[in-house]
């Protein structure tokens, strides 16, 4: 330490051009940032966001080596997979080539690089399509489907899964067909096509049960529970989630149990049962601790817990939970989740009629703009920002933000989001 004050993250990131090669450096700067300890109890303390945290150049310099190590490790693993593919090519093993390329894609997915993963899967698919055995091709299509969904390209995802299903059925590949049904259900769910999602999940569940694939059956039951909740059939939702939970708990699957409990919490919250909902979330967190570390899962549970507290008027608890989530999101560079954290924090300030809460929405928008495939996320922030302004009686600004949200949802063809914005705009005009 030089004794000089740290540089604010908003300044630090302002000095960095938007280059892909600098993504790891950006992540390093964010994860090393600390709140200014002088600000913790100051009147600006409650409004601390990522931009107001500080980072010491010395610390970045010291930790750069670790970042390089991780980058080199990732590249080495990718190169090794490529060489494996090359060797398989040399010995005429096309299925081996596909496997190696898929592994490379999964490595990219593991570090959140879905566009790059897609590129590997595209190459794998080209090789797989030439094979007599269609199962590698099915696997490529499923991988592409998942990557497309992760990138928010739901229609593309559905197309890949549809093709995978047709091929798997032709090949009597039951496991491939079940997985494709699950993917098709996910794509339909993401597009708000409840009936379609239900049909695909139900079909997948029948196939999984016939094949004795308990793990996939449990996942499909969980998704059917999610769907039933969204459709308002809360009794059916409870039934599906109970069955999924029994499956996963008896199999000792900690991460899946945590996911089911996270859904159970949302169901209980929708039923107005705040106590059981909080208990379900707390138990979900406990299970997630036993599973392989998955910050995304932990953050999802913490955000749900904060939302529950917010809706129950337990504002102190909501804020404390959001600050914990913020810490996890920053440490793990989970920027999409951080956008959600700040959006909820802004909502919380809106409930308190605290106008300065706008700083959270501004920070969320700035983060969302910097994210790849973030338009839907950005639209969600504008929607919440509009509602915040409306709550404070600033109708013109509220309308402007809601219209911006509608514009983005329109450009994405997001019917569900658009309808929600329309309803809010109508309420504003009434």
């Amino acid at each position, binding site marked *: 330490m030089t004794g000089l004050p740290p540089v604010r993250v908003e300044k630090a990131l302002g000095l960095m051009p938007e280059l892909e090669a600098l993504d790891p450096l950006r992540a390093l700067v964010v994860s090393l940032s600390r709140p200014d300890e002088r600000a913790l109890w100051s009147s600006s303390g409650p*409004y601390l966001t990522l931009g107001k945290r500080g980072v010491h150049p010395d610390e970045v310099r010291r930790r750069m080596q670790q970042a390089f190590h991780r980058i080199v490790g990732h590249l080495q693993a990718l190169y090794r997979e490529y060489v494996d593919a090359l060797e398989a090519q040399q010995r005429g093993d096309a299925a081996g080539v596909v496997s190696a390329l898929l592994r490379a894609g999964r490595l990219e997915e593991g570090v959140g690089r879905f566009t790059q993963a897609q590129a590997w899967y595209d190459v794998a698919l080209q090789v797989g399509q030439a094979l007599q055995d269609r199962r590698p091709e099915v696997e490529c299509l499923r991988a592409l489907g998942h990557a497309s969904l992760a990138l928010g390209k739901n229609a593309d995802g559905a197309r890949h899964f549809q093709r995978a299903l047709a091929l798997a059925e032709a090949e009597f590949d039951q496991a491939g067909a079940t997985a494709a049904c699950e993917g098709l259900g996910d794509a339909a769910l993401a597009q708000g096509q409840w009936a379609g999602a239900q049909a695909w999940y139900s079909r997948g569940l029948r196939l999984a049960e016939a094949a004795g694939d308990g793990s996939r059956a449990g996942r499909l039951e969980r998704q059917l529970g999610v769907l039933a909740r969204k459709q308002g059939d809360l009794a059916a939702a409870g039934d599906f989630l109970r069955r999924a939970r029994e499956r996963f708990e008896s199999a000792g699957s900690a991460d899946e149990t945590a996911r089911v409990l996270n859904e159970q919490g949302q169901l209980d919250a929708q039923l107005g049962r705040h106590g059981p909902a909080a208990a379900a979330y*707390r138990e979900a967190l*406990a299970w997630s*601790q036993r599973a392989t570390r998955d910050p995304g899962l932990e953050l999802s549970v913490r955000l749900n817990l904060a939302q529950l507290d917010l809706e129950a008027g337990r504002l102190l608890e909501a804020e404390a939970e959001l600050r914990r989530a913020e810490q996890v999101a920053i440490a793990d560079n989970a920027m999409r989740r951080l956008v959600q954290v700040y959006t909820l924090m802004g909502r919380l300030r809106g409930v308190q009629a605290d106008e300065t809460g706008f700083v959270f929405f501004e920070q969320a928008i700035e983060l969302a703009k910097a994210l790849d495939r973030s338009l839907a996320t950005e639209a969600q922030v504008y929607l919440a920002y509009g509602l915040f302004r409306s709550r404070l009686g600033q109708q013109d600004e509220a309308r402007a*933000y809601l219209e911006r949200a509608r514009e983005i949802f329109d450009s994405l063809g997001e019917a569900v989001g658009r309808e929600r914005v329309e309803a809010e705009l109508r309420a504003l005009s009434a």
Partner: protein
Amino acid sequence: MTPPLRVESSPRSAGPRREEVALLRILVVAGEGTRAAGLLQNLRQWADDGRLELDSAPDLPRAVRQLAGARWDLVVAVLGEHPDDDLAWWVDTLRGVPGSPRLLAAAPTPSMGLVLRAEKAGVLDVLSLPLRRDDLMAALERIRSAAAETALPLPPVEAQAVGPYALVGQSPAMLDVYKLLARVAGSAATVLVQGESGTGKEVVARALHVNGPKATGAFVAVNCAAIPENLLESELFGHEKGAFTGAVTRKIGRFEQAAGGTLFLDEIADMSLALQAKILRAVQEREIERVGGAEAIPVDVRMIAATNRDLKEAIQQGRFREDLYYRLAVVTIRLPRLGERGDDLVLLTAYFVRQFAERYGKQIHAISDRALDLLRGHAWVGNVRELRNVIERAVIVGGEDVLRAEHLPEELRGEAVTLADRPQGGLLTLAEIEARHIARVLAHTNGQIGAAAEILGIHRNTLTRKMKEYGL
């Protein structure tokens, strides 16, 4: 809410009667396998002597279920292969559990770092495995002795209401503030309020406003440190529609909103030099321009500024304009730290307990002697704001007519009930004593390194180095 400890009374001859010793409900989370079975067997053997009621859970998730279903006094958790992570999860899990059970962690060979982190988190104790009866009984004794609390009625408080806040306190330091406030409130003079974070600068600014010549106008507060630098100018001066990307509508700034009233610029030292120049112009010329606008708009506002920084030092470092300082500091009011206000702490505590009890529909009329001791012994680096936070949480957690030590945050409770010295039964090395003392001071200052360094009398860089060395 039922008391955490049930005392059963029936006659017995010598010493403290067995039935008078409080029964403790303990949840043991030891995992599975022979070691866990051994631990449970030992605890069951000691349960009768120790007046313990035991139950067990195999792991954290199942324990969460049991914690939600009944009331417990203590959780004995065996930490796994990653004791630091496990401990953090346990602390997080027990936060908000009804009855605020204490945590007693056990590990085969607890490290110094683990023990110190546990201490900071308010953990009752960290014991080595295999568990020794005497260590356990000593930890239980600390819970029991902490439970013997006497209720003290809350004293009456005369509070001077200031909008949503109030001026509370009768200490000499605050009486000086009141006198100065009374002298300057009636004028329209610009006032600079200085004081550490949480000392009540905004409350004083509001008091100046409501007792001043512009009391009928609005009181508009802007927190200069909270707002992103690129937005602060438009927040203060407003903007015209289309002035920049994101200027979706015309915006009236805070200067204009405060017209005929008071503009309170909080944390003024956090403003950029460029913006300071614009503020100076507004103060001098009493007019502003909206961002993207060409028209000069006259503004008639009383300005009050506040900071927790030393502005003269900031001037020397070239981070604050000297001319603006003299414009703002026509009158300077310096607010004392909570630590300098003596028994104001008790009055403020009583005031906040009543305020939050009313807000949350609780019937709290007293505070326990131990809770008050813990409050008196804390460093309060966040001053009144920190006290207010602590009391609000305590009122939410508490449910009876008495605010007890168990309702206070674990960090505060941890300051009084410290862990037993390590290594067990042995003498500590100089480094261990230093590490332990640093951890205690950090717990005392809520982890604030600057404040801790000041207490320890060392430079903050030295403290940072030592913290790294000891894994704190």
